[in-house]
């Protein structure tokens, strides 16, 4: 008998033949455990992600069974590696093509801040062009750190209000990046 752990149900009221809970708690639980990541890997952090996806660390344990290489079906954009300025518009377009709700994780020093590349040709952090939810530090981060970042994303997803994406704050955030 394999030892399969299931996610426990969100808090609610249970009685004979029914279970009542808040809709966004149920949706959050479902979303958090079925995040489809889009790996946007440009350098060595991408290699660490490959190790994270592999059997030893097994990213799929957290519900990210299917890395989605199409932005249309992806929920989570994982940017791993140095983003040169020439790559910036492409990354931005990939983000725009993702459907809401969408989350972004900046993996490694380069994606977070430009890293060691103190140069005219390198974007000094992807948050110059797209909003970022979770930053994973490291150069490159170990698979454990990437998994920790994913669990942080899962926490955000689980607790996100269903109305957040319609809120004026969110629209203002996207507006600051010139998206919408």
């Amino acid at each position, binding site marked *: 008998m394999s030892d399969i752990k299931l996610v426990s149900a969100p808090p609610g009221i249970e009685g004979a033949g029914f279970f009542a809970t808040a809709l966004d708690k149920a949706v959050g639980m479902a979303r958090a455990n079925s995040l489809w990541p889009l790996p946007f890997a440009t350098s060595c952090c991408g290699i660490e992600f490959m190790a994270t996806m592999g059997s030893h660390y097994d990213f799929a344990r957290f519900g990210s069974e299917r890395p989605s290489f199409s932005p249309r079906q992806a929920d989570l954009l994982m940017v791993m590696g140095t983003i040169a300025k*020439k790559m910036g518009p492409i990354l931005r377009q990939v983000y725009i093509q993702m459907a809401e709700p969408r989350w972004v994780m900046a993996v490694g020093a380069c994606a977070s801040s*430009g890293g060691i590349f*103190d*140069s*005219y*040709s390198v*974007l*000094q*952090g992807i948050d110059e062009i797209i909003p970022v939810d979770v930053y994973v530090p490291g150069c490159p981060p170990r698979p454990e750190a990437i998994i920790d970042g994913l669990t942080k994303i899962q926490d955000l997803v689980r607790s996100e209000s269903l109305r957040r994406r319609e809120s004026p704050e969110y629209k203002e955030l996207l507006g600051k990046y010139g998206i919408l």
Partner: protein
Amino acid sequence: MDKLNNQAVLRKITARFGEQITIPTEPAGLLTFETSKENILGVLGFLKEDNELQFNYLTDITGIHYPEQTLPIGVVYHIHSLINNVRIRIKVFLEADKPAIPSATKLWEGANWMERETYDFFGIIFEGHPNLVRILNVDDMTVFPMRKEYPLEDPNRVDKKDYFFGR
């Protein structure tokens, strides 16, 4: 057949161009000299077409910037005689304001991308080039980043202090 040495190459090219060939040196055994932008195509063409020299391969074109010189912008040609296994380096220095030099694409098709790259980083205009636009940097860049007057660092950086980098 005797191996073609640097002195023989220099004698031959000096016999043809005389005073137009200046400051010949041999750092690390590589024959290097300067010429002017009026003569560069003639010199390159002579080296390529000459029956004995046969410098038939253009290894590289690049630029250099020495802000303290009166002619600060340099164009450096590396050419290689595959037949004689001899390389030489030719430098041409230009004025800082709108540096321009004839394009070598008439002699070597391969000069096309090298000249675009040199334009991209140093702003050197290669006259007669079929498509002199940026090749590596973003199209909307307004500076020539390898020139000393432009900062190397990105102006938007927030977490990088000079003292972390020993400056």
